């Protein structure tokens, strides 16, 4: 089986979430997915763009979808839910005959040919499939209690994302199960972590991420599994800040699903960028005999 798609890493992939990018590429390779990075891609505009103007946001995102199409890719995947939301919205808007000209006016080129977009998570679960993953696992994540945290926009709004259940998504749960992990019923799967409020409004992050850590801890979660660079950063990088603000001392590693999946598929710690994480997961992984 060989799957070939365009790839949009997103800005954080070369910054705060290098390990997500790295592990995503490694896992895809392992699963027979060819990722073709869109040449000269630009920022999707992220949250700031759509909070300023929807057409501007659509144009910034659409540039990449048009580029991808020019480079012969009909479909683009991205690991980042925030990029996904922007690219999806743009793709939706340029399908609308009435809206498209507005985007084209900003972009100064035609958007008629544009790639469609999905998340790498969706690609893996729908096109590779759980059975294939199960077969490919060489190092099962036995005795590892994980909580899967999807973040607020991976599946919402459902009309736009059209993927998994908006209230109780299961894609990562299923992948982790296929990898042999014990998946805890994490009730706050889609609650917001504080997202981009980190810099301007730190108290929001410490409050919201604090709740997530508290509930994860109450379930005796050993590792939190995420699919979103912002979630990961808020929970991992800022875990100390969150702890200080809430008077707690949680010490829960927060990893990307591609990192754990990669390990289960036999990739090395180095290949999935484990060392980039702030809360070190290696003791637990060693204990569980994964490393």
């Amino acid at each position, binding site marked *: 089986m060989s799957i070939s798609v365009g790839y949009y890493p997103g800005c954080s992939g070369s910054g705060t979430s290098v390990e997500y990018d790295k592990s995503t590429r490694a896992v895809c390779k392992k699963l027979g997915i060819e990722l073709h990075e869109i040449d000269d891609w630009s920022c999707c505009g992220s949250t700031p763009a759509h909070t300023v103007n929807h057409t501007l946001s659509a144009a910034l995102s659409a540039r990449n979808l048009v580029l991808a199409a020019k480079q012969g890719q009909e479909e683009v995947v991205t690991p980042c839910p925030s990029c996904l939301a922007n690219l999806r919205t743009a793709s939706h808007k340029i399908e609308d005959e009435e809206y498209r000209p507005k985007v084209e006016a*900003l972009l100064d080129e035609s958007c008629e040919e544009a790639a469609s977009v999905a998340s790498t998570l969706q690609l893996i679960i729908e096109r590779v499939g759980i059975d294939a993953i199960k077969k490919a696992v060489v190092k099962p994540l036995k005795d590892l209690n994980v909580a899967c945290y999807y973040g607020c926009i991976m599946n*919402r709004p459902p009309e736009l994302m059209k993927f998994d259940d908006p209230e109780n998504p299961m894609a990562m749960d299923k992948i982790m199960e296929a990898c042999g992990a014990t998946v805890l019923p994490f009730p706050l799967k889609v609650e917001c972590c504080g997202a981009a*409020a980190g*810099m*301007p409004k730190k108290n929001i992050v410490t409050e919201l991420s604090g709740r997530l850590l508290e509930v994860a801890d109450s379930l005796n979660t050993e590792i939190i599994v995420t699919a979103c660079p912002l979630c990961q950063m808020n929970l991992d990088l800022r875990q100390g*800040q969150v702890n200080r603000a809430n008077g707690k001392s949680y010490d829960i590693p927060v990893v990307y699903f591609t990192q754990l999946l990669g390990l289960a598929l036999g990739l090395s710690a180095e290949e999935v960028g484990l060392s980039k994480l702030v809360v070190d997961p290696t003791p637990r992984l060693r204990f569980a005999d994964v490393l």
Partner: protein
Amino acid sequence: METIPLNSPDREFIREVQERSGQNVLACYQCGNCTAGCPYNFAYDLSVSRVMRLVQLGQREAVLKSHSIWLCATCQSCTTRCPNSIDVAKIMDVLRHMAREAGYATERNVKAFGDAFLESVEKHGRVYELGVTATYIRKTGRFWTDVDLAPAMLPKNKLSIKPHEIRGKEHVSEIFKRFRERDAVKENS
């Protein structure tokens, strides 16, 4: 508390919100579900269902100067759970656009962060995180509140020191330029 005068509700405001968001705000029956699920509610001055109500009542000023519309993170909780399938998050977004256009910036830092981010994109084609931070500090006069993160981040090479310039950065910056021109036209007309 102030008395809201209902003799002359700002119908133009209601119409504009409806048109720009594509949502029927009159469908809101004030169940409060959006407020109930809003993770940012604790930081809001107006709960999101009250924002909806004030829009229904045509209270432009009260809505556009609220802090809530800046703090909303578009997490989609309200949209996903509204019994009347109103895209509330989109309405919040549209209100923020209208607030910007009308010159409100009740949450200066949020606005500054957004602006810094977009400036960076405009300049380099991609976000340059350190650059955003620097601009943000310059705009707000606030020293990086996240200095405590540096010891964790720097050794892991997570913040790149150099911006990622793309070849097509002109193309990107032109998008911004055209956007501003188009906007200027709109303001004049």
